[in-house]
């Protein structure tokens, strides 16, 4: 049992508050047409930030699904910078420096779970210490990849933490249409691994569960399936209108259990948090995201960047395509070859 200290909890809360604030800014940027579709972090802050704090950024890895980046800053400030590049659609948006042990977003749901298991397995083969934590949603747990990867992890005793964030929804599909299972943690038995179900709105409980799973993995006892129960407080993404399917009362009830409010209340009672701290934390977070956004939109981009890093070197056909593109780009007047209109 490793309950986080109150100071750790305050650090976690700082990350949570920052993520929420930055998520709001990102939402607005999307509404202004400055960035692409965004998946809000609201309601996931405790589970993501507390997990990041229970892990060791120097040795452990995190595979996000897509809601997590803003709450992963403990793994390095580069996460935010890269995520802004991602949001503006820059190809560097999924490249983090080698020191930051966060995998790129895989987009295709649940495909990251076997990646995480493979990496955990590979680390044991290389005698590298560390565990791999992979986030995935309740919806994603219905994909075959979850099953195949969890089973493989069990057989290999891979040092992995399979962290299912059950936020009750997969876009518009409620949990009871996603599965008839009473809990998702129940699935662990079928893979011969421990399964725990925790309150994902309770940062301390998350920290503790992840810490225990981590210790187990580091001691060679293999993977753990954690089901963190939360509620998706925001829209699925900026393209979604949840009022079409989420009953207002249900959402209101969930809002009363907001993970930020809960932890803030607790820490305030200990004299470790107050509105002023919140205000300055938010202000700093916004300053950082604004800076990251400015950097992102001014990040250079070669005219033929579309070809870079597909292979280590261009195939003959790609080389021709690249040349043709460069020629078309440097040809000043488009009138010659284009449509005149």
């Amino acid at each position, binding site marked *: 049992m490793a309950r986080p200290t109150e100071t750790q909890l305050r650090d976690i809360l700082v990350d949570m508050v920052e993520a929420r604030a930055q998520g709001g800014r990102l939402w607005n940027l999307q509404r202004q047409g400055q960035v*692409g*579709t965004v998946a809000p972090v609201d309601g996931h802050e405790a589970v993501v930030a507390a997990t990041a704090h229970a892990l060791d950024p120097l040795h452990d890895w995190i595979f996000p699904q897509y809601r997590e980046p803003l709450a992963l800053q403990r793994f390095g400030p580069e996460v935010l910078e890269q995520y802004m590049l*991602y949001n*503006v*659609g*820059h*190809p560097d*948006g999924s490249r983090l420096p080698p020191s930051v042990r966060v995998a790129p*977003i895989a*987009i*295709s*749901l649940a495909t990251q779970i076997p990646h995480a298991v493979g990496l955990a397995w590979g680390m044991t083969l290389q005698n590298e210490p560390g565990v791999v934590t992979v986030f995935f949603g309740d*919806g*994603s747990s*219905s*994909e*075959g990849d979850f099953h195949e990867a969890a089973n493989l992890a069990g057989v290999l005793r891979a040092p992995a933490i399979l962290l299912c964030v059950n936020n009750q929804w*997969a*876009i*518009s*599909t409620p949990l009871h*249409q*996603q*599965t008839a299972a009473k809990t998702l943690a129940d699935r662990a038995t079928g893979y011969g691994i421990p399964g725990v179900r925790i309150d994902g709105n309770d940062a301390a409980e998350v920290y503790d569960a992840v810490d225990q799973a981590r210790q187990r993995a580091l001691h060679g006892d293999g993977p753990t399936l954690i089901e963190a129960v939360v509620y998706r407080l925001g829209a699925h993404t900026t*393209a*979604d*209108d949840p009022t*079409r*399917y989420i009953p207002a009362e249900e959402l209101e009830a969930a809002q009363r259990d907001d993970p930020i409010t809960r932890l803030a209340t607790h820490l305030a009672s200990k004299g470790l948090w107050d509105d002023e701290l919140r205000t300055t934390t938010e202000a700093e977070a916004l300053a950082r995201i604004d800076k990251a956004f400015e950097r992102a939109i001014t990040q250079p*981009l070669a*005219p033929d*960047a*579309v*070809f870079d890093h*597909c292979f280590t070197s261009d*195939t003959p*056909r*790609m080389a021709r*395509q*690249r040349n043709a*593109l460069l020629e*078309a780009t440097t040809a000043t007047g*488009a009138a010659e*070859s*284009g*449509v*005149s*209109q």
Partner: protein
Amino acid sequence: MTETSELTMLQSINEALHGEMARDERVVLLGEDIGHVGGVFRATEGLFEKFGETRVVDTPLAEGAIVGSAVGLAMAGLVPVAEIQFLGFSYQAMHQLAGQVARLRYRSQGRFEPAITIRAPFGGGVRTPELHSDSLEGQLANIPGLKVVAPATAADAKGLLAASIRDPDPVIFLEPLRGYRGIRGDVPDGDHVVPLGSARLARTGDDLVIVAWSYQVELACKVADALTAEGLSIAVLDLRSLVPLDLEAISAVVDRCGRAVVVEEAAQTGGFAGEVVATIVEECFWSLEAPVVRVSGFDVPYPVGMLEDTYVPDEKRIAAAVRQTLASA
């Protein structure tokens, strides 16, 4: 004369689904988020309310199970219409699509009728994340036993979707993301069926033909119209269905024009444009006055937003290929 209404492609697809569900009780819809919210693009809007939760089913998030259970539904005598939220996620179901759906009739030598339609949006231009825009029609067309349909107009979307659902063979029906709201036109009211396997001459012309399908037809027509204004005579052939491929329509127009450009959005190597070129060579070699040129996506994965406009063939690239082919001698 049939009455028509001006609809977006999305509306016409929705209309086709309404029509087919009303017409045939065996038609059932399944997919992710197609019920309560009517699909992430609202293509299935109103169907849940009208036909109820037993005929419009929000499934768990598992493409393999969506396509795989459609096989069983078809064996039960139903006519499943499954939605894959984005074509890129059909990879999750490829073992069921290519290995099962497409073979059920052949394997059982006609005992079972896979009257299955799988709808999926695809194609770029709308700044989606990875795998949401991928054009996989070249890969799909190489799956024997599967028909591949890709409408380019609002009217055809309705007529071809109706035909696909009524077809006793399995069809993958590809809907251009950019076309959902970006393509609109007059669509016949009521029952409207366009037979599968017949191409459409979208523009007549004698100098050169641009062969295309789906959203690229829209671009090809713009190029043809612009060049017509310059005095050239450019035909546009909209394939409409890649499987079955309308060999006669292709050879008729290529024989007349002697020059052809084929447009696709997918990566070039192994894409369906290669198949069209090979077909033209087989059917019309002696009429050809110049090499057939492909305008394709590059041989890289569909890229992120900032690189999209570089990647996706546009009017400029098509026009350049047309001029190059006309100049070639």
